[in-house]
């Protein structure tokens, strides 16, 4: 399964990337919305882990592009707002699920497993 992490928190993205790699996932990372879109156009992932709040463009903007251009790619939103509200907004825009930061890896793996099946 090919995964792309788009998050402006470099340490977070890198660490999560490492941990997923340890679990044999094909993971790449991008540290801004623009970088994310470039990575998306270079290679289409199966799953995108997308942060909502980024300095250059919001996760929702990226999500809109994914929903429009990459119907095969499924997006899981990452929210630091501590509530499901923003996540639900993401669902409305085409994301298939959302997770609240700090993310529990177990939870993420469970969701990925569901997607894989």
């Amino acid at each position, binding site marked *: 399964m090919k995964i792309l992490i788009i998050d402006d928190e470099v*340490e977070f993205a890198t660490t999560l990337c490492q941990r997923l790699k340890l679990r044999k996932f094909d993971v790449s990372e991008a540290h801004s919305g623009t970088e994310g879109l470039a990575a998306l156009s270079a290679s289409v992932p199966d799953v995108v882990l997308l942060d909502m709040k980024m300095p250059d463009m919001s996760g929702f903007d990226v999500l809109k592009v994914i929903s429009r251009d990459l119907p095969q790619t499924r997006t899981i939103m990452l929210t630091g*707002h501590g509530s499901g509200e923003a996540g639900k907004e993401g669902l409305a825009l085409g994301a298939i699920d959302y997770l609240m930061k*700090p993310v529990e890896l177990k939870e993420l793996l469970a969701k990925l497993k569901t997607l894989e099946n």
Partner: protein
Amino acid sequence: MNIISKIMPSLSGDIESPEALERRYRQFSSSLTCILLALVLIPMFIISVLAHSQYKRMLEEEEVGRLLLNAEQAENTVELFVVKLRSIINFAGHEDRYDELLQPGVLQNLFLRLRNSFPDYTDIEVVGPDGHTAAWEGDYVSKGQSYIGQPWYDETLNKGFYISNIFTGFRGVPHFVVAVSRKLKGGGQWVMRVNIDGKTLQRYVDAVAATSVDDLFLVDQQAILQTTPKKYGERGKPSIFIGGGALNRRLDAEVERHRQAVGGEFLIDRQMTDGKAMLRVIRPVIGTPWRLVMVKEDYRRGAKWINFRNHLFFYLVSCGVLSILIIISISRAITEYIRASDLKRKQFLREAENNDKLASIGRLAAGVAHEINNPLAIINQKAGLMEDYMEMTGDFEYKTELSGALSGIDESVERCKTITHRLLGFARHTDVTEEEIEINKMLKEVTSFVDREASYNQVGINFHFAEHLTPIVSDRGQLQQVFLNILNNAIYAICKDGEINISTRQMDPGHVEVKIADTGCGMNKETLERLFEPFYTTKPTGKGTGLGMSITYGIINKLGGRIKVDSEEGKGTTFTFLLPVRNKEAGKEKTDV
């Protein structure tokens, strides 16, 4: 308006204590009462005084006018009687009849004829030029009596006519004398004297005594009564109506007219007689030595005046009392109204201030929580990565200790996560899922969550539910969170051995009240003031986040309800929730707290 603003109690400035404010309200109420009373009672009183004096003056004028008229009529009647009497005697004692009258039988015939017309002629007498009785007829006269030197005889000779006062004389019967003098052809004068019974005059006076006067009688120059008054005095005795008094000056013109018509002896005045105010008029009867006295009880004793005064007094007093009662209740109602609005305004201000404070704290907290969430996520992932590596690595020294330390990091991250999520939850407007809820049933359910803890702590939970409560439409989950939080706090406050009383009631068709009262330790003033502030807690560090009450506050506000807290240190705390049956706020655009 200036006066009103001066007496209005003000909330601003120097009102430092409830007692001082209460004093101001009382002062306002009494000032308002006084002003309104003055506005109503003073004009009422002035109008009454004016009506009183106008009516009094009218009655006085009417009374004096009528009395003057009556007295004039009465005097005319008596005067007419005397004129008539004089003309008869003048006719009977014609100048050249002296010799004829001395003839036997002539005087007797004349006397009989006179008596036929006037039965009160008691006797008739012819007095010769020598001053001795020459002939007589009647009941009492004796022959040969000499009148020389007697005042009446001299006056008759001098003036040609004489009329006496009423006197009893030796005959013991009241009578008066009328005499005329005549010249003899050969020189000298003879006199015809007639004695008339006093009853004649009495009859005349009685006949003219009008019903509108209290008494009418004749007195002589020395104020000796000539006729018998109906009420005041006895004939032959001095009248009690002597001396002069004063009369209302306004009547001077009318009185002057009478005085000029009558002469100097005219008198009209008011005086106190037998303790009664009397109006009296005295006027001389022309051609006689008599004066006519007419008295009337003062108008102030008359039915007209007494009725008027009683009515005036009755209306004045009843209107006054009614006005006082109405004004007092109006003043009280206005004061109560102002007091209630002041209280409402104060509450509103306090609430607005509180809301404002909570909103600022909420925004700050949300910002902080969001910023913390990201590094927290990094810590979490880093610790996770370390755990991953440890699992992949074989045993090494301190592996167990390192694993323990990483678990500690995980736990702390979890704790921080709870806090940041709750903080964000408090600050954020979360969706309200509405459904119909039976409050009593829901409270029972929520209570079941804390049953075990309550029984461990010997805390009894009692329900006092109102039957037939209107189900409310609200967010079940959030309400459960609220009540659970309050119940947990109550159990914590009681600690051991106490009671929690949960009651519900229908406040009005649109609202349901839930009351949760505990017998715990209560709160001091500071805690009560800061109760809804985030992070404010009285629990030991690590035991509470200090967010429960602020979240509760946020939820209840969001659901369109109100919270009221009453607490007394050492006695317990009561939370009162007023929940709308339907949340009018739902669906409206809201900003984050």
